[in-house]
């Protein structure tokens, strides 16, 4: 890759961004659930050039023991970037930035997970950035949330996340790498869509009060859209599984009483 230089303008006179998007347009997003066989739950996300895989293990026994929480499970998030994920080789040692993002992601996810159902155990979330092009922490949250659901971990809701920023004085949604680097600010955020609670809100650069409020509203709108994509991806991963089996699934309704989950139901009686 040729050395990067600052683009002259981030937003064209026509109001389009460097990659041709409108200011409130997300990059193309592709979510996949169940991409890893070994993990209890997994998901991948492609958002523009950003590509991230998340794997979830657990709830399982916690080692080392001294981290044990007696009233709830410990949510351990590890965010790592591959050495080849950025043009300048990323040094493989865990960096300050990776540790911080790990914590930030854990804090964003924890409020929705019913951690109290698994005291003393651990839920491990591993996030690997394969290719980074801005917005990795938000993309990571999107994928991790899906991976948690795929692992069968009880949670209040999926968590969508998106970054809103400012470039050439205009608020823009879902920053790419250049917009992030050369723009005037960046506000990554994550919400619980069912209640509109915010579980992640960071900011760098300077925003006026009005700008920040508008940025958050743009972020919430984009998150709601992302949430729809997440739900679709999750359902899709199970629907396709059943379709490749047999086609007589039309009479789904009739057969219902006879099979699935019955022994569990009987326990109630």
């Amino acid at each position, binding site marked *: 890759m040729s050395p990067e230089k600052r683009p002259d303008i981030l937003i064209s006179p026509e109001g389009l961004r460097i990659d041709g998007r409108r200011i409130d347009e997300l990059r193309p997003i592709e979510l996949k659930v169940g991409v890893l066989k070994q993990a*209890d*739950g997994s998901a991948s996300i492609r958002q523009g050039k950003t590509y991230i895989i998340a794997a979830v293990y*657990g*709830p*399982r*026994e*916690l080692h080392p023991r001294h981290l044990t929480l007696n*009233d709830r*499970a410990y949510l351990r998030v590890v965010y790592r970037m591959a050495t080849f994920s950025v043009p300048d080789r990323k040094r493989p040692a865990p960096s300050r930035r990776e540790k911080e993002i790990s914590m930030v992601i854990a804090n964003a996810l924890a409020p*929705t997970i*019913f951690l109290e*159902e*698994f*005291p*003393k*155990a*651990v839920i491990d979330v591993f996030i690997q950035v394969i290719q980074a092009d801005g917005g990795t922490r938000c993309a990571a949250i999107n994928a991790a949330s899906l991976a948690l*659901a*795929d*692992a*069968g*971990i*009880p*949670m*209040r*809701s*999926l968590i969508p996340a998106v970054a809103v920023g400012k470039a050439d004085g205009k608020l823009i949604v879902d920053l790419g790498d250049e917009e992030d680097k050369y723009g005037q600010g960046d506000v990554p955020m994550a919400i*619980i*869509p*069912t209640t509109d609670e915010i579980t992640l809100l960071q900011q760098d650069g300077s925003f006026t009060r009005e700008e920040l409020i508008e940025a958050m509203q743009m972020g919430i709108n984009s998150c709601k859209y992302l949430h729809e994509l*997440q*739900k679709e991806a*999750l*359902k899709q991963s*199970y*629907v396709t*599984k*059943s379709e490749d*089996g*047999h086609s*007589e*699934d039309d*009479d*789904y*309704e009739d*057969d*219902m009483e*006879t*099979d*699935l*989950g*019955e*022994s*569990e*139901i*009987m*326990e*109630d009686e």
Partner: protein
Amino acid sequence: MRENQLAVYFHKREVVVPGQLLADGRYRASDGTYDTEDGKVYSALVGLAELRGNTVKVVPLEGAYLPKEGDLVIGTITIVAGNNWKVDIGGPYLASLHANNALRRPYSDDISEYMDIGDVIVAEITAFDRRSGPFLSMKGRGLRKLEGGMLLEVSPAKIPRIIGRRGSMINMIKDHLRIQTIVGQNGRIWIKAKDTETLRLAIKAIRTVEEQAHTSKLTDRINNMLEEALSSRQSEAQSMSKEGEVKETAPTSSEEPVEAETPEVPESTSDSADEEGEDSTTEGSDETAEPKEPSEGGTEETAVAEDENQPAEIIDTEEVSEE
């Protein structure tokens, strides 16, 4: 959609995702769901939503094993500590089994004489709460140390489907293949078959149920699959007329990577030696191999004695399904 007027927002057996609104109004949240103060019920899991009376539940499609009082589980002994065995039953928690709950007194100070690390047992969960446990007991019908056979691990969420309604699925598999099985609620299935091909077929059947757990008419499909496999095997055997090199020609079972699914839990070498011997014998005599381990407490002995009278052993799974 039948209960539309009462504000239920899902079709029966619909695949739902966490945070999806399921019902609004006088509905009770149960397993796999949660409710909010304004009376709305949401899903907490990826699973199939169901309505029973006014109770909403979500049957999970994935998930680790969470112990429940009264569950029948299959575990591996990992630690012998004083008067306790620590048993790996899958999931996040290690279970304890006290010697008093497994052996008839008096018993020797060294309880590893009776059961040691690596032994596989069937036990019942007697207590589990957030503070302590789970605790196991082996006093009960069919609770014993397992000898021979193999362990299959499946997703614990799929166990209800593998058992089927009142044991319909597992009993159907057993009737076809004439195997012994015990299904633990923790996702472990013990299978003992008279030959390797039957074992393969059993594994294939169970794996198919696991993969297609959320589809309908599964019992019928498995039934057909087994019947087909068995009849093709029979005609094969007839055409060969000698039992020399009976090759598996059941349409798909040869593709199954059975070798990869050998027991995850190591059985002691003596067991496998036993098993080799038993493979060629008939079912009836294969039962008699069990009392070879007479040293265990009274419970085991009675359990084994009952097994002897019942070649196609059904008791264990019935216990699981009829809790």
